């Protein structure tokens, strides 16, 4: 055995040469077996399988459920839940939670309304909403990261604080925004699939790349998994947390823009249902509530699943009063299922 040890490649691009080719970590057969025995696979399969089952059941009960018009309108309805679930995924991956997400949507729509009233161009109004979300996220992240206060308490406080600011600045009155360019993304689309849904999917792809293909993403997973180990490996834990919550808040801002586009006015009253559905979608999507383990596809499918469930029940003539009850049951069932997989 030689006295020298092999070195890992230095950060610059070092061609790995023939050794990389030899390093086939395992044969295909082994990989497949490992994959099937993998509990992650089952966690990840829950939401897609449930979605397929739900679609089959509802379309048997009412064939109109699967018509193109109904399908595209349900996908459009799932836009805001998807965007908020994407944001919530970042908080949950950090082993945290953002309870202020729904009130961030409300505040974002209020600030957007203020900008509109001030006569600013629509793209600036949209930017104001996004910026509002980013600021709320930064506030949460800074207090959680440096104040070392549990995320639950911080965002509970922020939820009320943000709600209050929204109500005070708007006096509780919605601002009408009759603007064709604003409603454009909610009305038009490609082949019936609305632009708002496509935007949500594009954001999902972007955030997937951020989480799984960047250093920041890897650090976020590590911090969510084990804060002490992350510190020992010299990760800047507070900064990573800050960035995670900024992304989460930013998605709240995007949610505000899409909501305003959808209903054509600001909405100062917080719709707590948004928060519930975002967290539910994340849990359904197989993201670990203990942090460190996430997917982006899962929460998207989870959000679509919850929207389809609600729309399907409406189509069947079930009273809307039943939908919170059902969503609650689905969330707890999903959480129990995932716990078994820990």
């Amino acid at each position, binding site marked *: *055995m030689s*006295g*020298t*040890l*092999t*070195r*890992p*490649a230095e*950060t610059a*691009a070092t061609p*790995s040469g023939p*050794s*990389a080719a*030899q*390093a086939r*970590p*395992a044969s295909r057969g082994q990989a497949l077996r*490992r994959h099937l025995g993998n509990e992650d696979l089952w966690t990840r399969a829950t939401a897609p399988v449930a979605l397929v089952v739900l679609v089959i059941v509802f379309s048997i009960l009412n064939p109109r459920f699967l018509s193109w018009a109904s399908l595209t309108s349900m996908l459009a309805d799932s836009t805001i839940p998807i965007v908020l679930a994407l944001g919530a995924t970042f908080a949950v991956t950090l082993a945290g939670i953002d309870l202020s997400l729904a009130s961030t949507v409300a505040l974002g729509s209020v600030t957007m309304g203020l900008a509109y009233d001030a006569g600013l161009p629509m793209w600036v109004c949209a930017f104001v909403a996004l910026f509002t979300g980013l600021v709320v996220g930064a506030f949460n992240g800074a207090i959680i990261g440096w104040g070392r206060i549990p995320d639950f308490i911080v965002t509970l406080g922020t939820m009320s604080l943000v709600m209050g600011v929204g109500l005070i600045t708007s006096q509780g009155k919605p601002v009408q925004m009759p603007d064709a360019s604003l409603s454009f993304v909610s009305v038009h689309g490609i082949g019936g699939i609305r632009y708002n849904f496509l935007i949500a999917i594009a954001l999902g792809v972007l955030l997937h*790349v951020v989480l*799984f*293909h*960047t*250093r920041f*993403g*890897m*650090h976020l*997973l*590590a911090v969510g*998994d*084990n804060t*002490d*180990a*992350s*510190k*020992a*490996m*010299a*990760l800047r834990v507070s900064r990573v947390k800050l960035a995670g919550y900024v992304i989460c808040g930013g998605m709240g801002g995007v949610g505000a823009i899409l909501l305003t586009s959808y209903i054509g006015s600001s909405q100062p009253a917080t719709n707590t249902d948004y928060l519930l559905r975002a967290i539910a979608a994340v849990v359904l999507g197989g993201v*670990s509530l203990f*942090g*460190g*383990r996430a997917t982006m596809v899962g929460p998207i499918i989870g959000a679509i699943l919850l929207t389809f469930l609600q729309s399907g029940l409406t189509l069947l003539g079930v009273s809307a009063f039943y939908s919170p009850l059902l969503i609650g049951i689905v969330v707890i069932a999903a959480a129990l299922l995932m716990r078994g997989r820990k």
Partner: protein
Amino acid sequence: MSAAKVEVRDVRKTFGSVEALRGASLSIAQGEITAIVGDNGAGKSTLVKCITGLIPPDTGDILVDGSPVHFSSPKDARDHGIETVYQDLALCDQLSVWQNLYLDRELTRGFGPVQFLRRRQMRSEAHRLVSDLAVNVPHVGRPVRRLSGGQRQAVAIARGVMWARGMIVLDEPTAALGLRETAQVEGLIRRVVDAGQTVLVVSHNFEQVKRLSSQVWVMRAGAVVTGVRTADVTGEELVGLVTGAITAV
């Protein structure tokens, strides 16, 4: 004895009312294996963390290669080529073996601030490196949570060895290992030293200390009470020094 790689002078550290270190001093010779022994709670891990930048000492000086250093993060120690295998291993359970090996030292490609991970390259490099280290690390794509205690320890050791550029600090590296794996790790430590690096090892295993080290420091109640050349001391004398039954050889 050769020049000192690290010198610790009168380092103190208190946690609230606990005096973990009450004036610890020792030196670690360049290119040697130095051991620290002592009972549970003697302050060994705290001293290690002070040396590697994880805990800032309250007072006292630490010199690396003859010049005083004030590490405020393990990154500073790393920049001096010092790697650490912590007693708690500092692994992220949900991340795979290769992700743990490359954490905070990821290989990326891209333009300017837009950088993407070279996942495939890190994976295959990790595989090649751990095979070369001849420690019992399983498939590098597996999440760490599915490894046995000994395998986890092997991952942490592999990470330390693969990045060390001058010195490696190991806090009870073979605590969870079987006989064969312990021998492998000892072989690896010897290779590291043969390659010219310095090793500091904390161990409760006096046989191991006798087998491996050239110098041994004894800690008791937050202080370094004695330091001897390992060749000049028997296993029984080491036990006596640790318990305080004897104070010098």
